[in-house]
Structure formats: structure tokens, C-alpha cells
């Protein structure tokens, strides 16, 4: 449609565009620029070429933070996405399930900081629920300093993540499953297929795009993880829960290494973009097959 005047389209897009360019795009370009400098926040940044980049590739803590986040992502793909999918399957073949759906979604909308502080108490070795239950069961030797032990800290955080987000993926998969046509399901049932067979052989294959989006959300969301790690363990013990974002914040705001922190930010961005690109490739390849 032709605009009623030459200026109205520009007036309409101006607020959104100006805010975005000012507060997101300019800093994005700025961060990229800073990544090639050495700067402690005072005076002028000094040009450093690719120094920060070569330093990052040799930085053992940075590499470790990527290993940690990779473990976190793999585990959360199971405890968030897979659990959500299975729950959606179980609940979608039943009636009167609203109360469960409501209960399972509650943690999703709570602030991560609230969740983190609460779970720090739940994991508390002295009065936390987990150790209290372990002791009640008479298995004293399994009681742990969950967040303070290098063996359990990262997995304990993954578990909290599952507690928060499995309800979210349950809701996403439920929305996807509702789009699978009823007649296909009913004809399979008439042929004598069991509920679980209908779910794994018909419904799950048919919601491929929802599965892909969920995996992408879990992976890119995981790479950006911050709140849980920062509040629950602060990256410790011995860097076992250090993730790229917590390390970046420390480099910039505690060590005053703004240039180096920016380099880490740009590397993280590159990885997020790469994951997105791979994901789009996969989608393109699969285009045209039957799905809902």
C-alpha cells in the first residue's frame, strides 16, 4: 500500500529504529572495536591488533568456561528439552491435566536470582532439603556440599536449570502437538497403536520444527547463561562452574580489562551466530517434508 505521505513511514519506524541503533547497534560495533584494544577504562584505548584474540585462544580459564558450558548444554538438552517433550507426550494423551501444567510452569516465570538464592539454600549442606532427605533415608554418606564440591557443582546447577525450564519446553511442545491433525492419530489408534507408540512414531516425528526450535533455544540460551552461575557459585569451586559470561563480567568489571573482555564477547557472539547458521542450514535441507 502506498503511504499517505512521504514522511509517515519514517515517522512510524523512527522511535523503534533510533532506540535500537542507539542502545544496541552502536554498543555492538563499539564492543567489536574495543576487542582490538588494550584498555582499563581510563585514558584512551591502545590499539592491540589481534593480541587479545591470540591470548583468548591460549587462556585456559576461557577454554574451560567453554567446556563447562558445553557440558551444561548437553545435560540441559536432556533435563529441560527431553523431559519437557516426554511430559508433553504424557499429558497430551490425557484429560484434566491443567493443574499439572500450571504447577510445572511456575518456576519459569520466577526471576532467576530468586531461583538461585532459593536453590543455594536447598543445596545447603547443613539445612538444605536435599541433604536432610538423604539423612532421613539413612544414607549419610551421600550427603554433599553440593555447590562446593568440584564433582557435583556443575551438575547441581544443571539440575536447577531443569527444574526451571522443563515446564517451559512442556508448554512449547504442547503447542506443537496440538497442531498434529487428530484424524492421523485416531486412525493409528484404530489400528491398535498404543499411546506411547502413537507419541514416538507419529507425533514426535511430525513436530520436527518445534523440536529444532527448542534445541536451538536451549543451546543459544545455554551459551548465554549467567544468572544461575553468578549467584549460585560465582564460577567456583576452582572454575568448575565458570562459564564464558561470568568470566567476561569478571574480566571487565573486576580486572578492568575492557579490551580483553570485549574480545571474549565477540568470540561468544561468533559462536552464537555459528550455531544459528548451522541450524538454518539444517532447516533448509529438511524443507518440504511433511511436518506441523
Amino acid at each position, binding site marked *: *500500500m*502506498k*503511504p*499517505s*505521505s512521504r514522511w*509517515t*513511514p*519514517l515517522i512510524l*519506524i523512527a*522511535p*523503534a*529504529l533510533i*532506540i*535500537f541503533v542507539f*542502545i*544496541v*547497534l552502536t*554498543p555492538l560495533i*563499539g*564492543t567489536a572495536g*574495543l576487542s582490538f584494544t588494550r584498555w582499563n577504562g581510563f585514558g584512551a584505548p591502545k590499539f592491540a591488533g589481534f593480541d587479545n584474540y591470540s591470548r583468548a585462544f591460549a587462556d585456559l580459564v576461557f577454554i574451560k568456561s567453554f567446556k563447562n558450558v558445553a557440558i551444561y548444554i548437553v545435560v540441559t538438552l536432556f533435563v529441560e528439552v527431553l523431559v519437557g517433550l516426554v511430559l508433553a507426550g*504424557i*499429558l497430551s*494423551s*490425557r*484429560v484434566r491435566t491443567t493443574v*499439572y501444567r500450571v504447577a*510445572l*510452569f*511456575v*518456576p*519459569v*516465570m520466577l*526471576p*532467576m536470582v*530468586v531461583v538461585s*538464592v532459593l*536453590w543455594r*539454600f536447598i543445596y545447603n549442606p547443613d539445612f538444605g*532439603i536435599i541433604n536432610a532427605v538423604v539423612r532421613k533415608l539413612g544414607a549419610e554418606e551421600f550427603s554433599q556440599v553440593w555447590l562446593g564440591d568440584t564433582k557435583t557443582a556443575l551438575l547441581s546447577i544443571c539440575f536447577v536449570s531443569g*527444574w526451571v525450564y522443563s*515446564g*517451559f519446553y512442556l*508448554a*512449547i511442545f504442547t*503447542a506443537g502437538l496440538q497442531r498434529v491433525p487428530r484424524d492421523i492419530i*485416531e486412525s493409528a489408534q484404530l489400528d491398535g497403536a498404543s499411546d506411547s507408540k502413537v507419541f514416538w512414531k507419529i507425533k514426535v516425528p511430525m513436530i520436527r520444527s518445534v523440536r529444532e*526450535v527448542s534445541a536451538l533455544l536451549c543451546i543459544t540460551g545455554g*551459551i548465554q547463561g*549467567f*544468572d544461575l552461575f*553468578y549467584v549460585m557459585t560465582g564460577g567456583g569451586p576452582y572454575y568448575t562452574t565458570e562459564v564464558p559470561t561470568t568470566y567476561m563480567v569478571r574480566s*571487565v568489571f573486576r580486572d578492568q580489562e*575492557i579490551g580483553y*573482555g*570485549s574480545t571474549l*564477547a565477540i568470540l561468544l*557472539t561468533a559462536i*552464537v*551466530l555459528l550455531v544459528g547458521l548451522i541450524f538454518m542450514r539444517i532447516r533448509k535441507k529438511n524443507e518440504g517434508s511433511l511436518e506441523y
Partner: protein
Amino acid sequence: MRDLLNIRNPRKTAIFHTVMVIYSLFYVTPLFWMIMSSFKSNGEIFQDPLGLPKTLDLSVFPKSFKAAMLDKLMINSLITTALSSTIILVSASMAAFAFSRLNFKGSKFYLGVLTIGLIVPIQSYFIAQNQLVELFHLKDTRIALILPYAGMGMALAVWLLKAYLDSMPKELFEAARVDGCGDIRMYFNIVLPVLRPGLATVAVFSVLSAWNEFLLAIIYIQREDLKTIPSGLLTFSQKYVTDYQMLFAALTIITIPMITVYIIFNRQVVSGLTEGSLK
């Protein structure tokens, strides 16, 4: 058909509900424990972590409310969230209208610029954004959070609202144009009314993400009376490290209103969040 099967098999239904109730306890127990613990003294919390409180003494709540300055934190969160979400709703709906329905030079380019915001995470730009906020002397002001929250949510909001408008019949707009309706009047009289479900979706995720945002909140706001709930809670938990009853009470005060609002609007909240991420 499903209902018939369920009626035919009451035993299976009973097993299903038993399993689901037990499973749901895993989600609910931490919250129930949090509420119960805020009624227990520190001594009770340590001696019998799983036990119920001996008395239901409510006096800890006003004490914790005051110590954590929850009134200030809540007002700050409310103002920050309301303003950033309003900015998103107004400017994104205007932009979505122009991108979806009006032909103008550079439309593809401008939309492309905005789309960058869909892809890059906050980590990509917060370091230089922090410098920008400092440069404009915005540290320790509410604008330091309102503007970034609005900017962060903008791209997704424009895309979602544009998708809504794209799915509308074009006659709706063209008929009005034939009747002499200009762009600005069309925005108020046609676009805003038909966009209502889309605006509700955008409102849900804008409000929740602003209300819960943490990273920028701890960087840009140091003054305690300007902090929002997440960063203020962290400060409180560092100050009262061992006063567990107070901390449990603060968590409870923050959580209960959120759960109440969620239970009332659960359908809108769930569909708002899922649509926001599926699109």
C-alpha cells in the same frame, strides 16, 4: 474417543494421576519449603529442616520487607518494567505497521538493521553499552535500565507484530484508504485494535524479561534505593548472609505476588511466552 478410553480404564487413570502428583511435588516442594522456612527461626531451620514451623508468626514479613527495602525495589521494578514495556509496545507496533503495510524506500534495509537484534545476545554488546551509559552520565538512573530493556526487546516485538499484520487481509487496510484514511489515523483506528492479541503476547514477554533482568541491573545501578528486585535481592542476601529466616521471608514476599498473578493469567502468560519463542 480419548475420554472413552480413559473411562474404560480407571486403574490406568489412577496410576497416571498418582505419578503426576508425585512428579509435580518436585516442582512445588522447593516453594512450599521456602514459605514454611520463613516462619521458622534460624535455630528451627537448622535443627529440623524438613519440619513444619511450630508457630505461624507473621512478624518476620514486615521486618524482612523493611530490611530488604522491598517497597523501593518493587517500585523501581514496576517503573522500569512499565516504561520499557510501554516503549516497546508503542514503537514496535508503529514500526510493524510501516514494515508490514506501507511501501517505502529503504524498508528492507531498516528492517534488516532491526533484525540484527533478533540474533545477537546481550553479551555481544553490554561492555560498550556500559561505556555509553557512563558517557551520557546515566549510571544510577532508571533510564540506564529502561532504554536497554526497550532496545533489547524491540526486534522480536517488531517481528511478532509484523507477522500478525501480515496475516490480516489487505482489504481491511485498503478499504480504509479508499475512504480517505491517512496512515496515522489508520494506525490508531485499525492497526491497534486488530493487533490486540499480538500486543498481549509482546506485553507478556517484555514485562517478564524486564522484571527478571539481572546482568545489566547489577552493572548499571549501584545505588541501593534505585535497584530493581533481582539486583536488590542479591545485595540483601549478601548483607544478611546468615539470617536465613529473613532471606526466606524476602523470597516469599517476592514470589507470592508473582505466582498469584501467574495463576490468574496463566493461559495468557504461557501462550505469550511460547509464542514469543516459537516465532
